[in-house]
């Protein structure tokens, strides 16, 4: 992502033990007003914080389905540092939390005009769309002015977890009800095996209960010596 944003100043590795508000200080030192903080947990889950540094709101996302620029199926290419066009889905205007996220995204991703490291032409466009309560990000190269596009990297899906009022902290403004943490997901998957066994046991128990008691005692040897009278036997033949 850094190659795409010329107005980015990078701080590659950070604290593990320090608190999150240290990031605020670092940003102030570097004179930045927006921050993207990527953190990886358990070598499996990637979280992204998007924050307006001095005291503005911040949002935490879970990054899913990440494909980097170096994948060979992405055939497009763009100038390093050219300003991107940003394209948003109409769903962003429908709810308050999406609009807030939209504003944060605009301010973070758009390169300022006449930035010294930016290139003057417009040859790529970022799309942010909402599907399944997640934000899908794609980056396309503009091949022709009439709209033919080729995909450049990267592509990812952001699942919003919470939006906070302060930068990297503060009261929660929004919590996503559809979000299931990856730990919970893994927990559920593992539980499914146990579920099969438990439901089988329960089914057996309920069968026992439903079977009911025999109404009276019968002796199976009662009809061993049953003899049919010859008059009745003739009816059958």
């Amino acid at each position, binding site marked *: 992502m850094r*190659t*795409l944003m010329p107005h980015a100043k990078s701080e590659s590795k950070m604290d593990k033990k320090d608190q999150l508000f240290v990031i605020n200080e670092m940003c102030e030192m570097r004179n930045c007003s927006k921050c993207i903080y990527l953190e990886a947990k358990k070598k499996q889950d990637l979280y992204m914080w998007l924050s*307006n540094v001095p005291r*503005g*709101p911040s949002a935490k996302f879970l990054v899913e389905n990440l494909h980097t*620029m*170096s994948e*060979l199926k*992405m*055939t497009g*290419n*763009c*100038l*390093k540092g050219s*300003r*991107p*066009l*940003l*394209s*948003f*889905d*109409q769903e*962003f*205007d429908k709810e*308050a*939390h999406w609009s*807030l996220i939209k*504003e944060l995204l*605009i*301010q973070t991703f*758009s390169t*300022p*005009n006449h930035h010294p490291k930016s290139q*003057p*032409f*417009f*040859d790529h*466009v970022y*799309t942010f*769309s909402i*599907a*399944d309560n997640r934000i*899908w990000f*794609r980056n*396309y190269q*503009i091949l022709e*002015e*009439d*709209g033919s*596009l080729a995909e*450049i*990297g990267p592509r990812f899906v952001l699942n919003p977890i919470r*939006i906070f*009022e302060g930068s990297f902290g503060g*009261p*929660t*403004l*929004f*919590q996503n*009800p559809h979000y299931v943490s990856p730990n919970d997901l893994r927990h559920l998957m593992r539980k499914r095996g146990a579920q099969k066994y438990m439901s089988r046991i329960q089914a057996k128990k309920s069968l026992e209960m439903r079977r009911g008691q025999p109404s009276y005692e019968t002796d199976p040897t009662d009809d061993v010596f049953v003899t049919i009278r010859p008059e009745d036997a003739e009816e059958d033949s």
Partner: protein
Amino acid sequence: MDLDESFSSESSVDSDEELQEAFAAGKLRPGLNLELPASSKTINNTAGLNQTLLTIKKNLPWLERLDVTSKPATTHKDLISQSETDVHDDFKRELRFYCQAQATVLEAIPRLHSMSIPTKRPEDFFAQMAKSDDHMKRVREKLVEKQTAIERSEKAKKLRELRKYGKKVQIEVIQKRQKEKKEMLDAVKKYRKGQKDKLDFLENLPGEKKNSQNKKSADNLRPNKKREFKNKKFGFGGQKKRSKMNTKSSALDMSEFNPNINQKKPGKTGKGKPKPGNKNKRPGKARRQKAKSRKK
């Protein structure tokens, strides 16, 4: 204590009269009506969100932000419909994103042009690209590879089809010829036995014989390469007799020298020659007898 108050308030809600009132009002649904605690998962402070939005909103001219909100609107619109897109249908989903990006481009470029800002990169503008040239080369190679693989498989398929078809045609032609021959012989027999006076069956001889003879040229009548080689080596019996004369030319002849046999050290092939096949798999007589007796 707060807890006690909340409990008492709950019990008052559950009292009979209030339940009856609620039922009359149609608020209750069938089933056990329990008062669930408000789910703590959802916090949607809309007012707070809107307020923060106002505070951070920067009213910059569009040129600074370059954002466009668009609906996917292009020629592919009939293929996608907003409400039905299933997230797991990859093709439709990506198509929707593509169309959205296209709509944005179609809106933004004219706008930039109206502000007289050049959008297209001129041919002589060389600058560093996001992906290195090396990377792009690899991408292109991969595409070409895919293309050739497809072409190869197509060719193989066509060849197979052709062979099948050719075989069919061959069988048909042979059968036709056999039929014609039979008819001809029957007609001749009939004529000989005096049933037919006219010799008109001789007129309708298949004129294709001339064309087919062109096909049966010397090249096509030669046997298989394999057959030819075997003929040369083993045919006519006596060919071998004169091939072992010790003349100068035969001594200098190296065509029957195989370096793989005569120049390499006897390694694996030397050991592999006595086939370790049957003898190792089948145990010897004594072993077999023992096994037999043990079984019983």
